[in-house]
């Protein structure tokens, strides 16, 4: 048993109920609740709000695609104004999760410039579950939500909306390029920067722009967006100031909500190639 993964014998759902007793394989959706981080309609509210900010129409569910780059449903209304600028994503995640912006916060000091804003998120996956571990600069936090965002330059962010009572805009993203899949259920991303956002960051269009902090680390995701199943995401990174960031996100078994926001070119590193 040297493999890092032990494949279960039956692949019918992300989680299954193992009944009391001996070996019995039963499929079915997990009834686990956990700390559900996405409320019903979260994605819709997210894109609606974004659309309002950009003056465009809401992105419709008919744009959702699966594994292939070519949408199975025609991407109508694919206007430029519907693209998600990557640095804005994390702020949107938090602003929608918690609309309160009034409290003060102790932001992590950063010595890096704001993240570049010339890339556009082309795919967004929202995962339902809870953070068993979330540490920002070594300090433990709870999280509100975790999202996977892929941009048109091939960069991937695992964005974590931090449940920080003192900062409703607190978002940290593990960011990297050249993600690789070892197999259908294993995705690994080398982290080269942390994107740190807080309410104290400079704002563009009313939303804070994160600072990019050079970092080294890795994120590993078990599961498969194409099958809309993610079991867990583990991330660990250390920035150039020596601060550590850790994430262990565990899915509650609900299908991943995958949104392809715009069609992107093929990329062998793209886990949805």
């Amino acid at each position, binding site marked *: 048993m040297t493999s890092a993964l032990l494949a279960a014998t039956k692949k019918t759902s992300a989680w*299954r109920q*193992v009944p*009391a007793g001996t*070996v019995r394989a039963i499929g079915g959706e997990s009834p*686990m*609740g956990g700390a559900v981080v996405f409320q019903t309609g979260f994605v819709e509210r997210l894109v609606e709000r974004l659309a309002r900010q950009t003056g465009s129409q809401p992105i419709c569910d008919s744009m959702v695609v699966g594994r292939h780059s070519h949408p199975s449903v025609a991407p109508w209304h694919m206007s430029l104004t519907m693209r998600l600028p990557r640095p804005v994503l994390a702020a949107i995640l938090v602003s929608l999760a918690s609309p309160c912006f009034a409290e003060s916060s102790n932001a992590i000091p950063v010595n890096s410039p704001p993240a570049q804003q010339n890339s556009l998120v082309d795919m967004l996956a929202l995962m339902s579950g809870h953070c068993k*571990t979330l540490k920002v600069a070594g300090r433990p936090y709870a999280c509100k939500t975790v999202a996977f965002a892929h941009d048109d330059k091939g960069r991937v962010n695992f964005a974590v909306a931090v449940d920080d009572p003192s900062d409703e805009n607190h978002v940290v993203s593990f960011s990297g390029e050249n993600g690789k899949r070892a197999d259908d259920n294993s995705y690994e991303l080398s982290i080269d920067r942390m994107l740190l956002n807080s309410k104290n960051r400079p704002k563009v269009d009313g939303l804070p722009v994160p600072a990019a902090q050079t970092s080294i680390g890795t994120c590993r995701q078990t599961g498969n967006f194409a099958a809309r199943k993610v079991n867990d995401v583990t991330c660990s990174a250390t920035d150039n100031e020596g601060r550590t960031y850790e994430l262990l996100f565990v899915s509650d078994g609900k299908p991943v909500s995958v949104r392809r926001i715009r069609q992107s070119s093929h990329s062998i590193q793209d886990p949805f190639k």
Partner: protein
Amino acid sequence: MSAERERREILIATIADLLDGISHVAVGASSPIPAAGAMLLRARNERTGKPPVRISILGSQAHNFFTNGGIELFDCAAQGRVDAFFLGGGQSDGQGNINLVGTGDYPTGSVRWPGSFGSAYLYHLIPRVILFREEHSPRVFVPQVDFVSARAITPEVPRRGGPYALLTNMALFDFDREAGSFALRSVHPPFTPADIRENTGFAYQEPEVVRETKRPDAATLALLRGRIFDELAETYPAFARTMMQAA
């Protein structure tokens, strides 16, 4: 003995991982593996510059700041100053309830265990209770315990404490307090998910892909086989000696 040592080292390292982020962990009597896990966390945090961890090992002179034993532990827990603790049970069920009293119909059962002591109290108060039981068998992990020493979930009573995970010789489970059930997180080598199903008497959630429990890396093993077992020898000399001889 090498396999036995490796098994124990995986458990110790897993406990250290489960404790990550806490400030104070208390370890009850006769618990060398949890104690070693707590010591490993403390040593690792010192090396990496993380916030210090206070460990209170009942029965230890060197690694315990209590001067009045369990009384202080209980006070400390009630004040919210203990972040993690370990509980086991002669029986545990899928709802996280534990039985430290005995099997059969109380009080006429044929098997009698030491008793509940403060388990129910600490289960309510300490946020990260790790259920630790080396034996993983259907007689331990039952559909329903014969006697409830400590309930994991009490919807009628607000509480901050409760089970966080279940660690056995074979696997690691997470406990979902909202659902009131366990979910398999990883399986220790060389076991398989099928082994876990066969030896678990209660229902639980199993992911489609089950991870293998992470083995401790070389740095962790060096720390374990050096400083940790040296520290542990003060409270658990036989256990520490066995582990060091096997190394």
